[in-house]
């Protein structure tokens, strides 16, 4: 469990990036910070591994104040995946993945064996192990970044817009992988994004942030979708624009059993199966990402 207690960050140039931020990040769940550019997401994330130290307040991991932990030691126990992969360009993929293991004095053969396993884990072919980061595609680099983040088998994995720079198809792939990893490896993931769809897809708990890391709303995706706490949130999740409110298009003659759905703007948004002209109900239950709280909100799924 990671707990922020009244944390503030004032950068030396006077920017108040985080203002009195408090939250509990539960273990073995995915918590997503989502908000527009400059609202303080990266700053929050980097305070967890002490790449940034708060000017005020306390951050605790499992009840221990991290300010009392030596930063280098702390970082070796926390995985960190960056937007631009942050791989070392002069080291081969396998050495990049094994970096943390080498730092932790794991003998070479074991480190390489583990690094190779990790390539499998993140879905990278082992034949890429001897390439240099510059010889990989953006999506592959991100996978290497994830593998490196997992290398020391950390309980906590910090991910800062890890898929922001890859194309939508690869992104969907990587998002699916992330969900799989979370399920299989049971990590506490803190994920930063400015993409609300990604936040709702991945998050057990989602925090919508305004400037200064002010929490606009906190809850499960279902809770936020059902009851946006403010106009800001409604606007941010696209509810007010009707983006998520779908209706059956009466003008389009269905072919087969599918009805076309349109959003409030009148744009086609998808289809829904409707055998004999009746909407299908109940077969697929809403995906539960968090273990607690699952009173269904089938309507928007």
């Amino acid at each position, binding site marked *: 469990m990671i707990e922020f207690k009244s944390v503030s960050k004032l950068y030396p140039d006077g920017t108040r990036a985080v203002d009195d931020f408090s939250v509990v990040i539960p273990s073995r769940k995915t918590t997503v910070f989502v908000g527009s550019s400059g609202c303080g997401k990266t700053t929050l994330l980097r305070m967890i591994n002490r790449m940034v130290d708060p000017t005020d307040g306390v951050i605790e991991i499992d009840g221990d104040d991290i300010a009392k932990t030596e930063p280098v030691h702390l970082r070796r126990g926390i995985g960190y995946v*960056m937007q*631009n992969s942050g791989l*070392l360009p*002069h080291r081969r993929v396998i050495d990049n993945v094994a970096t943390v293991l080498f730092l932790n004095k794991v003998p070479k053969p074991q480190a390489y064996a583990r690094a190779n396993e990790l390539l499998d884990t993140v879905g990278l072919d082992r034949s890429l192990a001897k390439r240099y980061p510059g010889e990989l595609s953006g999506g592959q680099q991100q996978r290497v970044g994830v593998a490196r983040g997992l290398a020391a088998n950390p309980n906590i994995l910090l991910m800062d817009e890890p898929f922001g720079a890859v194309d939508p198809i690869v992104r969907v792939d990587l998002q699916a992988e992330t969900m799989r990893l979370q399920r299989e490896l049971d990590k506490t993931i803190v994920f930063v994004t400015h993409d609300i769809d990604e936040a709702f897809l991945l998050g057990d708990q989602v925090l919508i942030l305004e400037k200064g890391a002010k929490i606009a709303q906190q809850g499960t995706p279902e809770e936020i979708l059902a009851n946006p706490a403010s106009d800001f949130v409604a606007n941010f999740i696209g509810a007010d624009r009707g983006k998520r409110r779908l209706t059956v298009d009466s003008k389009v003659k269905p072919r087969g059993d599918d009805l076309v759905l349109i959003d409030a703007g009148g744009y086609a948004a998808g289809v829904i199966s409707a055998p004999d002209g009746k909407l299908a109900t109940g077969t697929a239950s809403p995906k539960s990402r968090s273990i607690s709280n699952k009173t269904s909100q089938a309507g928007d799924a």
Partner: protein
Amino acid sequence: MNLIIEGFAWIFDPAHWTTSSTSQGISEAFVQHIILTGISLLLTVLIAVPLGFYIGHSGRGRQVAIISSNVARAVPSLGLLTVLILAIPIIPGIPNNYLAYIIVFVLLGIPPMLAGAYAGLESVDRETTDAARAVGMTEWQVLTKVEIPLGASLIVGGLRSTTLQIVATVTIGSFLGQVSLGTFIVDGLEQGDFVKMIGGAILVAALALVLDGILALVQRFVVPRRVSRGSIDTGNTAHGMRLRASTPGTPITEGN
């Protein structure tokens, strides 16, 4: 053209290699030149490299590096040499004012080395060092495992400039009496012996070229694979761009 051929002929005349009562021999001058260059270079590196690394790593004292290189460029070597030779007393046990010469050679050698060491580290992408820190490297590890390897090309580039600088300044030292390959230029000038002057100039140039060639090889050797020489910027990986247009799919053969 003829004069140059004569210069080479002068060098290859064995009679000119040994010192006689009337003239300086090439062997001794050559050895002196190498010794002075070696000692000065060693001291220069010992001073400028740690300082340059400190500035490049911490970002502190950048001004020092810039100012020192500008000042050194403006100072006339011969003038500084003269002043210091006169100012520093002869120390018993150290041959003919060696100390004064070496101080000057080092002073003039420091700026390019300092600039190279500092610029080498400065050239490393901030994101890369940040990532290295984030995975748990200590500052020392960031320096030795990331910044120095990635900045190696510019660092050795600084060493090359410094070496040439010192070889050249040692030559000038002969105008104040220090024996070196410059001695032939000075003596030739005094005696109106242009062939000797050319011979000396060729020797200095040859020494400089050989040393620079060796260091150029070193430079090629130290640059990490897959990191393009000169520009170490990892480029913009934001859109998954490649570091450089290498051919993906080509297996990389590398031993451990």
